[in-house]
């Protein structure tokens, strides 16, 4: 017999029903979900392109330099030009032919396609969002559950760690972790993942404190279940929605942090992260090359806005403190 199915406060499927309602309930939320779906598709496509070139052991098309095509502005239909590369045999594009959607978002300082790099940026952004959440959410949830359920010394110890980490300015800590691990995305993953679990931990602890006094927990105790079974099989499903809300809000924050770190040159190395693109494009603005900066900024704004709006809707629907 499953206890949580019968005596828990949230009925089976309740969380998912609420999620569905939050996403589909309003037009704004549907638009946000659509934007996110679009970016997910772009990121998946980007990953496919990345893996394909890796497997073929080639320089990916978004990294190829065409000095003859520097600073092409965005255009729907353009005439492609002969390039120096085409003489050397690495590029076999037909010359002088009108091409639809050829470099539609223009090219950068080294003649690389902004759209392709933007898609790779989406891939990196999503990787960062997902991996950091995968690191931070289990840590925060597990520690929060332990602290809330057991209380006493366990609680003291965990909350001490929590307060200590929370007291250190977040970005500095991320920078420090990234420096220790080394430049590159691994540093970013660990830096963000290992420092952002504190908020979730605190919320989960508070919720578990509340839940452990509930009747269904008492019932489980009466039935003689062990503490860990009660905690992770009965209480955890009832606080899991907090993780979902946190994920939707942490995700855009992590993307923002990654852009920031890459902008400073600590994040992505040799890959077109949005931060790297911003940092490059910033130097070209005075030459009138506005499109790279605009495209990246719009992409960041869109994805962060969509996640935040949707996250707010989810919180309205799921967070007991709000509802």
């Amino acid at each position, binding site marked *: 017999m499953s206890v949580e199915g019968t005596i828990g406060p949230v009925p089976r499927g309740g969380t998912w029903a609420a999620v569905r309602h939050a996403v589909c309930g309003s037009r704004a939320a549907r638009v946000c979900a659509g934007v996110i779906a679009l970016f997910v598709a772009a990121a998946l496509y980007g990953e496919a392109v990345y893996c394909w070139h890796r497997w073929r*052991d080639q*320089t990916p098309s978004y*990294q*190829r*330099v065409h*000095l003859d095509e520097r600073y092409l502005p965005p255009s729907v239909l353009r005439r492609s030009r002969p390039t*120096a*590369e085409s003489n*050397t045999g*690495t590029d076999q594009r037909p010359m002088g032919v009108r091409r639809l959607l050829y470099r539609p978002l223009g090219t950068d*300082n*080294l003649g690389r396609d902004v759209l392709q790099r933007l898609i790779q940026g989406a891939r990196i952004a999503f990787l960062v969002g997902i991996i950091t959440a995968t690191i931070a959410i289990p840590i925060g949830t597990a520690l929060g559950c332990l602290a809330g359920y057991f209380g006493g010394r366990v609680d003291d110890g965990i909350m001490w760690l929590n307060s200590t980490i929370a007291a250190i300015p977040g970005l500095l800590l991320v920078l420090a972790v990234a420096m220790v691990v080394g*430049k590159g995305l691994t540093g970013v993953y660990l830096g963000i993942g290992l420092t952002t679990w504190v908020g979730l931990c605190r919320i989960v602890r508070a919720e578990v404190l509340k839940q452990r006094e509930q009747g269904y927990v008492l019932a489980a105790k009466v039935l003689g279940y062990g503490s860990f079974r009660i905690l992770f099989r009965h209480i955890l499903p009832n606080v899991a929605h907090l993780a979902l809300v946190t994920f939707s809000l942490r995700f855009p924050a992590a993307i923002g942090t990654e852009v920031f770190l890459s902008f400073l*040159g*600590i994040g992505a*190395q*040799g890959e077109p992260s949005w931060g*790297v693109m911003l*940092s*490059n494009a*910033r*130097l070209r603005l*005075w*030459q009138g090359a506005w499109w790279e900066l605009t495209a990246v900024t719009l992409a960041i704004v869109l994805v962060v806005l969509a996640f935040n709006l949707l996250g707010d809707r989810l919180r309205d629907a799921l967070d007991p403190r709000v509802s």
Partner: protein
Amino acid sequence: MTLSGRWMGLAIRPVHDGRRQGDETGRFAAAAILLPLMVLSASGHARAAERSLPAGVEQVYRAETSRIRGFDPVRVGDVTSIHAISKVYETLLQYAYLDRPYRVEPLLAEALPDVSPDGLEYLFRIRRGIFFQDDPCFAGGRGRELTADDFVYSIKRVADQKNASGGYWAFRGRIVGLDAFREASASVAPTDYDSPVEGLKATDRYCLRIRLTRPYSQLPFVLAMHYAAAVPREAVEYYGADFINHPVGTGPFILKSWRRNYRMEYVRNPKWRETGRQDAYPSSGEAADATFGLLADAGRPVPFIDRIVEYVISDGSTQWLMFLAGELDVSGVSPDNWDAVFTADGRLNEALAKRGVRVHAMPQLNTYYVGFNMDDPVVGGNRALRQALTCAFDAEQWVRFHRGRVVRAVGPIPPGVSGYDPAATGAFPFDLERARERLQEAGYPGGRDPSTGRRLELTLELGAADASTRETAELLGAFFDRIGVALRPSYNNRPAFFSKLEQRRAQMFLLNWVADYPDPQNFLQLFYSPNASPGPNRTNYRDPEYDRLYEAAETLPNGPERLELCRTMVRMVMEDCPWIFLHHPVSYGLSHRRISNYKPHDFPYGMIKYVRVDERPAPVPQGGLRGPDSGD
């Protein structure tokens, strides 16, 4: 790694890999030459005919400066301070203003020194009738005559440990007895400047004898550095610790007022007129100098300027606006105002050209290169691979990418230094077919590494991670990609980068070298094996034959024989390819119509005395041009 130039007392300073590769910056600026690139607008030479200045109009030169550390030649070594010092103090020798390649000529010496046949003894005769400026430190406040003892004293000051001089590297182990004097000066007791140094002797009032421990043909360059400037002992003793704020020199200008971090003013040294001292503008130079009107003042007494006013302006846009308003006579060209100065095709903007603004471009004595670590198992032992990568470097595209702000390098020695060969094309110019052949010979057919079956992957270490460094690395990667070799950039901060070089852990690296003095030896030492890491030979290049030639050249005096040895060494390096030679940066400067006799120089210290300002009685009301410095 950025670059810069320095325009006669103002402007942009590079972070470079100077001597000891960036560990000590600012000792020597390196900058450039030369006329092929020096674009002068027509208005400049037309005026050469009417040289006479309107009587009674004070000629004022206005420039920008940065905060300076002070005027003690021995204690101070940053570029801005050297500019300030060299207006007031003078050295035995100086760089000839117009001649290229650079050479030194006598300044306070009567002539170039007599050198003994073994190259160990230098005899300088000091000019008679040179006086220090009037100052309360002298008896009666009247400046006394300069003697050979002043140089003995000044060089001892460089050696005195209590002065913690940054210039001792140039003297260490060179002059007989000077190192012992330095040892003795470490004690707490006041340094005894009367204790004799065997290699440094005033044999009479106007005769200075320097004895060396071994031949040192760069000594004349060292004696042209501000560290060796003549300082009067009276001033050092009179002002004590405050000497750094009270310059007392023999130079063309004296410091009139100094409001720290705001404004400095120099005026013509009245002692020159009083004692009848006459220094003349050079009467010979490069072939093109006459065309550009640079020889119109040949033989006339210098300085031409009566007063120099310098402002400390740290904000780039303020500097630029003040230049446009005519309140500054010269300006550098930074990336920020690049498009305000030049049109898309690299010509001077029409509005500026109409106002008679002139552009001065000069390739700097600075060589950028990609170094191969010769201790690395992949690139070190494989000469054909290095040659293949050199052949794959597309110099033309590289220059285009840098928008003409660099000139391509074909060897380690930049233009302006003897040993540079303008006709050389390099042993392995850009040629993809040849690169692929070499690569096959190197054991990587089509770029495939037989041991992995994948592309050969090489790591390029970089000392910064800013956008322009990243793009530079990506462009290099694109060049190598054409022959199927993958380049993985590894971005470091500066300390991490240099520690990798020192521990010989870098496979390939991007670096530059700024000349300390315009001598080929300064570049050729970068391949001499005893200089290997942590020394300046960062590639750890080793070749006994090269070392033999280098040692032979070190003991030879400047001349055709030494030059021939240098050329041979350059050819050896080109053939062996421990470096891919990238470029020499070009720095740009602007000057207003009223400035003439301006020629960019790599060692421009003190050269302001040759520059002329044509201040007219009624200033042309043009864009807010001010009258003779009325406003301050």
